[in-house]
């Protein structure tokens, strides 16, 4: 697999990382996601990493960077489902991912995205309208 699929759900983009990330995959994701945000005019991005078992400092930084890039493109990003071992590793590596929104699972992440966007006054148009 050389690409991570990016799914569009209305105003949101959903990225689920189901394989162990390697450096090239992360770089491709960064390119694909920024392009997709811009093209779709997405207001929120949800990155689910619940299947990610191993991280190194590079992947950790990529997660933070992708999230910040989304913010610059006016899309709020939430990282969901980080495993305890991954969280401990990132902290030990000195990566606190400050400024990155997190949630326990995809459902809570979605709720959080909606809440944040509501507070920001962005009308999330229902995709079925």
């Amino acid at each position, binding site marked *: 697999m050389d690409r991570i699929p990016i799914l569009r759900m209305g105003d949101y983009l959903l990225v689920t990382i189901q394989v162990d990330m390697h450096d090239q995959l992360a770089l491709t994701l960064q390119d694909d996601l920024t392009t997709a945000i811009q093209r779709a005019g997405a207001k929120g991005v949800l990155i689910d990493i619940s299947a990610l078992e191993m991280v190194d400092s590079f992947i950790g930084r990529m997660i933070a960077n992708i999230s910040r890039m989304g913010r610059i493109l006016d899309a709020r990003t939430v990282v969901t489902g*980080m495993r305890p071992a991954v*969280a401990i590793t990132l902290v*030990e590596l000195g990566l606190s991912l400050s400024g990155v929104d997190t949630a326990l699972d995809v459902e809570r992440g979605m709720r959080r995205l909606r809440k944040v966007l509501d507070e920001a006054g962005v009308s999330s148009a229902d995709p079925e309208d």
Partner: protein
Amino acid sequence: MMLPPMSQSDALVLDIIQQDAPGLLGDWLAELKARGTGADHRITEAELHEQGAELLRLLGPALSSGTDVNAEPWRPVREFLERVSRSRATQGFSSTETATFVFSLKRPLFTRAQARATDAATKGEATWTITELVDRLGLYTVGAFQKSREEVIVRQQEEMLELSTPVVKLWEGVVALPMIGTLDSARTQVVMESLLQSIVETGSEIAIIDITGVPTVDTLVAQHLLKTVTAIRLMGAECIISGIRPQIAQTIVHLGIDLEGVTTKATLADALSLAFKRSGLVVTRAKAV
């Protein structure tokens, strides 16, 4: 098997142990009694008698191979001494008392060697042999005693580690960790892992770390706490630290530790009420009292 030729003094000591075991044992036990072993009934006379007889019985064959206590033929003696040391350690004897058990054998052996030796040279030699032998055995006993004491300490530390990290569920979506005792790196690791694991298992969005039972907070402890808080945030939950005593608050500020961005509360009750507020819960009285 060919044994190396035995010196006259070694043969004399061996002879005493093999031929005069009952008498030797009697004197030995008398010596032990004189030195106060068994006076407080932690060990009975019958037990002492049994242990003494066993050691003398094992010493015979071991000694006929030479006086090197670390050699293979001495293994039964070493194992016996280890066993005795371990039981002494669990019975609460001090290292001195344990060593006395072996060292008391010296005088009875001396007296017998003095009586049996025919010339001054043999006398001197035998004295030296006995001293060396009993000293080695005594030192080995003390070493084994120390080792079993250390095993007890390590086991207790492990048990304490397990005892001191219970994660409790306070409410639906709220878990708490009452921390007790000094925080070091190993403990923090265990604490952090069990807390994060329980957050995943219960799907809790709020975790409270209560440090009422942590006696001192220094920069290292604060750093450990901050790491835990960050890891919890990375997983998508929120962390509240509660139970900060006035002295600890002062220390934290004096040390210049930055707890900015960490929610802190004075008591666990305050933290819980904040957790309720965050989850949109309200506590009311059922009726006016």
